[in-house]
């Protein structure tokens, strides 16, 4: 298990590989390279499942595309290509030759919890390495009109196939489990082998650490 969080606007050196990349793609690539500097690690990821969640997706190129369209009635192909929610995920798979299933999910309330719910329900069925990514970047022009912050956020959580081997999933709700509400919390909980619960809407997913009471 590995975890990475973007802290400051990293000074991403201009790299021709990233000339078409959006801010989110650049930050994500920087995080990916920091988290997996070794070649053999990248090999482990070749067929990993990728889950990328975002509240706003690539809203900046979408906004700029529509702005260009309103101003000149001409749409710029780059911006459209980057406007899709899957473009960030697709960019990562293309850049690092990741060939596994990749999912672009749109956060509703708490994107990180929603991603964990998806990835854990999958891992109950087939054990695979998983890469969970949360990222958001809201354009400044639009942030001025809304209550959203324009800060770029990116967090990456790598779950090796055996991460949950000491856990078992239970159906009943149990309030004594630790509520996980972020990747960071999940990372801590797993490292200290605590039992935990994920909640969305009124649905709960509870995992108890084996040989320990919740």
């Amino acid at each position, binding site marked *: 298990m590995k975890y990475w969080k973007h802290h400051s606007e990293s000074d991403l050196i201009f790299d021709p590989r990233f000339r078409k990349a959006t801010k989110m793609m650049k930050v994500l690539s920087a995080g990916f390279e920091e988290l997996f500097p070794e070649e053999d690690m990248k090999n482990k990821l070749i067929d990993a499942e990728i889950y990328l969640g975002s509240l706003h997706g690539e809203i900046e190129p979408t906004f700029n595309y*529509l702005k260009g369209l309103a101003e000149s009635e001409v*749409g710029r192909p780059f911006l459209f290509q980057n406007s899709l929610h899957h473009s960030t995920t697709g960019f990562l798979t293309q850049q690092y030759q990741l060939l596994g299933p990749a999912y672009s999910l749109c956060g*509703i309330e708490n994107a990180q919890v929603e991603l964990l719910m998806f990835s854990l*329900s999958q891992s*109950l069925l087939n054990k695979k390495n998983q890469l969970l990514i949360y990222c958001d970047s809201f354009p400044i022009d639009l942030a001025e009109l809304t209550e959203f912050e324009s800060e770029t956020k990116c967090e990456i959580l790598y779950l090796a196939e055996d991460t949950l081997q000491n856990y078992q999933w239970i159906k009943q709700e149990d309030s004594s489990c630790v509520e996980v509400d972020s990747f960071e919390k999940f990372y801590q909980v797993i490292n200290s082998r605590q039992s935990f619960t994920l909640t969305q809407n009124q649905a709960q997913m509870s995992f108890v650490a084996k040989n320990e009471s919740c």
Partner: protein
Amino acid sequence: MAQLINDSHSVYVTGSMAIHPFGMGIQSLWEACINKSRAFQEGLLYISKDLTEKCRGEFNLFPQKPLVKEVIQNDLLIWSLYSLKKVINESQLPLSNRDGLIIATTTGLTRIWEQGLLSHFKNEPVTGLLYQPLGGFAGEINQQLGHCGPLQVVSSACSAGTQAIGLGRSWIKSGFVERCFILGAEQICNLTRSGFKSLSLVSGNDCVPFNEERSGICLSEAVGALVLEGKNRGKAVMTVEGYGSASDGYSMTSPKPDGSGPYNSMSAALQDANISSRQVDWIHAHGTGSLHNDRAEAAAIKKLEILSPVSSTKGIHGHSLAASGVLETILCEEAFLRQQILESSFSEPKHFTININDRSRPSQLDYIIKNTLGFGGINASLVLGRVSK
């Protein structure tokens, strides 16, 4: 842990509903495919206003006060809420927090957002702009249905619909939910209409997949809703037997020409279903009518040595992006029911040496593969099976 996992291999499709440019329900679309209807105008195909009004009239679609008033006028929400209410009613079990809802869309409520932005660019008072196009769409549906179980939005480009079905199947098999509603929803908006054009992908005329005279894709709108359950409560004709998804790792806008992506997703789905490629009776292809798509998909089918007939029906109903995987899965359900396969629309003169199906006809159907390929190089395939009587 083991006792919570659904032991039976199959996940049943116990209900479905579709709204598309030819009407409501899947029969009208099936007939349009049989009759070879040509309805595109400048490469676009819309759902009619009359149909939208009909949907609005039948149920109380907005029992709750919407978060933003514009949504009551939004066609996509009307089609979506109508379809979901219809399948929930027919499912005859009230909603509980053990029901999941997975929504596949690439643009959601972008139509509303575009209107808000346009007034912003013209320095007019802005309405509706705060609305998140995808999460807001899901939130509104959740609220209007009074759904209280797990909810997710899949937006992996044109593979989102099939991925949503595959993921819903996992939710059921892992015991996380007992029933899962899948919604594929797509409305044509300025972003997609002009965007695909900017990439020179839209056909000015018709959509003719696998035809050597192809000229590109035709965009359309559609909503498809499915109910998935681990048990057959009596009327299911189709199961979701297997699912696979894979990335190309190649390009943002075109599939890898060797077809390795769809090859990997189909192989994974066959392995998941535990059947061989020889047992597949029909492939309902993604077949968008763009050279890059058709070439890669045909290469993948060839490499898998599948000799069974292959059809794309996008020449009739066009490409409804994230909704296409769900809509076309419902067409496959109808195929199982009728034990008939559809012809690949307007595929003459053929371009490929795979077995492109040139005639709608009766056929023994036990297994169908449904493929989708999407931007960013994302492929997803389903193995659908017939429920034996």
